[in-house]
């Protein structure tokens, strides 16, 4: 199921283990007191339509570069100790993991702010696209709030 946790920025087909990713981040410092994680998962409903599958595509290299920029800016702007970001591509079933952001810091406040900023920024600047499969067929999602 899970893959190597070596890199703090990853775009991968395989699922990941939240526990493993958190443990990898814990190794960065003995002074971590707060860890906020955001995990995005596949919802069954989207604008009233029943979704049967999701499918993600990314622009290789550019997407990874954007995630690394988000990581660096989060560390710099919010004073967290570190951050990891993982996004899956390919087919995703309902309930499966899509994206994980782990923000580790000395105290909880900065990790909440950094984590919430990072997922919003990821949606805004990272070249990743979602295709939803419903009973009506497949559609690329063009607008995410």
């Amino acid at each position, binding site marked *: 199921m899970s893959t190597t946790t070596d890199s703090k920025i990853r775009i991968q087909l395989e699922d990941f283990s939240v526990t493993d990713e958190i443990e990898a981040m814990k190794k960065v410092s003995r002074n971590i007191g707060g860890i906020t994680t955001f995990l*995005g*998962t596949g*919802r069954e409903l989207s604008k009233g339509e029943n979704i049967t599958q999701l499918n*993600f*595509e*990314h*622009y290789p*290299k*550019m*997407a990874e*570069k954007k995630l690394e920029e988000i990581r660096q800016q989060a560390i710099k702007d919010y004073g967290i100790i570190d951050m990891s970001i993982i*996004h899956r591509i390919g087919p995703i079933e309902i309930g499966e993991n*899509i*994206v994980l952001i782990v923000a580790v810091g000395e105290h909880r406040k900065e990790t909440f702010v950094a984590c919430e900023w990072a*997922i919003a920024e*990821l*949606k*805004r*600047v*990272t*070249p*990743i*696209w*979602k*295709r939803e499969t419903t009973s009506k067929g497949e559609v*690329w*999602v*063009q*607008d*995410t709030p």
Partner: protein
Amino acid sequence: MITVKYFASLRTIAEMEEDRIEVENSISMDQLSDIISKTSPKMGEFIRDKKVMISVNQEMADSDTIIHDGDEVAFLPPFSGGS
């Protein structure tokens, strides 16, 4: 030679995933959209009407960006990653 990439919904519009365009000198985005219009009129229109985002060498660009030989230009529909 310029590499042109189309992602997600734009692949359907351009009817291709990737194209290679031979150029003798640097060209403007307008010139590139004219070249693209010859094979994909609708895609050319999308670019001229600024309905797509553009990256050059994996950095965001715009209609003023000059494209050089060897560059990788990508046309990007609105992003929808995240969850």
